[in-house]
């Protein structure tokens, strides 16, 4: 019962903040709401026993990506204008698309209610040993370097980060005369 209330509170918070992100006129407030939404998602991770990922969410999304976004807002000053509408020429069409995507997914769940029960109290989280949950972090570390698991994505990730850094510096850094 308590768990359900906590879940509902956290997810409503997340979704409300998500709505502020997409609808607020003031971009800085939208970025704040984005952080709050990330925080809510971190709360969901904790409820799903993924404490490590929740902390990674705080570290990367709130501590790094949000700061990147706020810096970008500051660097592009015209964004601060708040008189105009935040939306482009097609908010209605976009709304219909988004709602129908959600409706399709919800319909699929309704169809699959035998397999994935919808009611509270049904289909509870399968119990797992505390040692398995706590050990999942170390297991994750093993997976990243184990040749049978994720070593290739792990190395590719580092190459991708390198490419992202070089690309962004190349794009964002003002060119000197001899380069352009």
């Amino acid at each position, binding site marked *: 019962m308590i768990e359900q209330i906590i879940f509902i509170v956290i997810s409503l918070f997340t979704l409300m903040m998500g709505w502020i992100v997409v609808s607020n006129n003031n971009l*800085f407030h939208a970025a704040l709401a984005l952080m709050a939404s990330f925080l809510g998602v971190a709360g969901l991770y904790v409820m799903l026993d993924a*404490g*490590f990922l929740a*902390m990674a969410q*705080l*570290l990367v999304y709130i*501590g790094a990506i949000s*700061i990147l976004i706020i810096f970008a807002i500051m660097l592009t000053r015209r964004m601060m204008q708040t008189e105009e509408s935040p939306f482009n020429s097609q908010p209605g069409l976009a709304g219909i698309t988004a709602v129908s995507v959600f409706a399709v997914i919800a319909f699929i769940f309704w169809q699959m209610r035998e397999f994935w029960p919808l009611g509270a109290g049904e289909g509870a989280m399968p119990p797992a040993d505390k040692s398995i949950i706590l050990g999942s972090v170390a297991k994750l570390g093993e997976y990243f370097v184990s040749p049978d698991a994720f070593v290739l994505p792990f190395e590719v990730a580092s190459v991708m980060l390198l490419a992202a850094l070089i690309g962004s510096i190349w794009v964002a850094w003002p060119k000197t005369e001899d380069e352009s």
Partner: protein
Amino acid sequence: MSFSFLEFLKSLVELTTGTYLRQVWGAKPWVDPTLDAIGVILVATFGLLIVLVLIWLERKVIARFQDRIGPNRVGGKYGLLQPVADALKLLTKEIITPSGADKWAYNLAPFLIVITALMMWAVMPFAPGVVGVDLNVGLFYVLAISSVSVVTVLLAGWGSNNKYALLGAFRAVAQMVSYEVPMILSLLIPIILARSMSSVDIVKAQTVPFAIVVPISALIFFISSLAEMGRTPFDLLEAESEIVAGFHIEYSGMKFAMFMLAEYISALFMSGLFTTVFLGGYRFFGLEMIKTASGFALGNLIGLIAFFVKMFVVFVVLVWIRGTLPRFRIDQMMDFNWKFLVPLSLALILVAALVDKALPVGVNDWTRAGVHLVSNVVVGAVTLEILRRNGRKQRTAHEEVRENADIETAAAH
């Protein structure tokens, strides 16, 4: 088991009150949440009240460094009540909200900065068995929470509608995120050595304190935590002579005090974290494990005292540094981080990972420590040699320029 006041007192001294109360109350569903709530309130109250001691200590010590007496009026000869008087003064000040401030950001920032500073204490092991909660991702949790406090600075600077505040906030964030990199990297090495992210496990793994095993990493962590807290010589975020006071210039009254409070709480926390990760935490030559013949765990109390002594020694070193060193220039500070600390700590991770795997399994702790120490010293020597050569090259280049300039001036005359 029924409640007896004497047993309760004994458990207080033994620092096992939680276990005792759990025995008394039995296995009911409300017991653990209640104990957790009490724990939270204890940890947070400790964090807030210790600041009074810290302010007094810092003023007194810094006064001694500057050949003054320091606070000596309020509360006796030693000015013991000075922080209380300061707090009372701040409580009766008017809270002014500057015009055009972003209300949400402006009011949220002082709350968040204190919350994040307090929340970091949750994983600090004070004594054997005395820890808020022993998370399996303890150190990662600390890093995550401290990265949230970076955002708070940005909130305060943005919300104030003041150019100095915003400039200060931007500088502060640039500095904090830069120095978070060597801090994260140097925390990796104790984790490799202890094979766990939990703060309690790291303390338990330190038969030899990690400051002796990997001294250079410890030094890097210390320097980068100084910068992370924005203390001298890295106090560019509130450089009074350059940008007035930085991100909290427009705050007044208790809202201003919250920033100071958070600064002191996190300064002590960083001292505590350094103690826990590199100085062996509550360990004190095995004395923290002793029990008297009657089964009374006296060691816990010894551990607590050892932890606090170490932590305050580190804190006094912080104050000492503040009393001694001048402020960096911002370009020097960024260069120092990105061109020295980060490459060095990356190299140290590689060396530590390699050495740790190269050692045979089951080798005893002292041998392991010795090998790590030697590898660290070698890395340090190589770094010093590179620095020396670089310095010489720069000096000669500089002298050549000056000589040329001298020749030119001589020719002009």
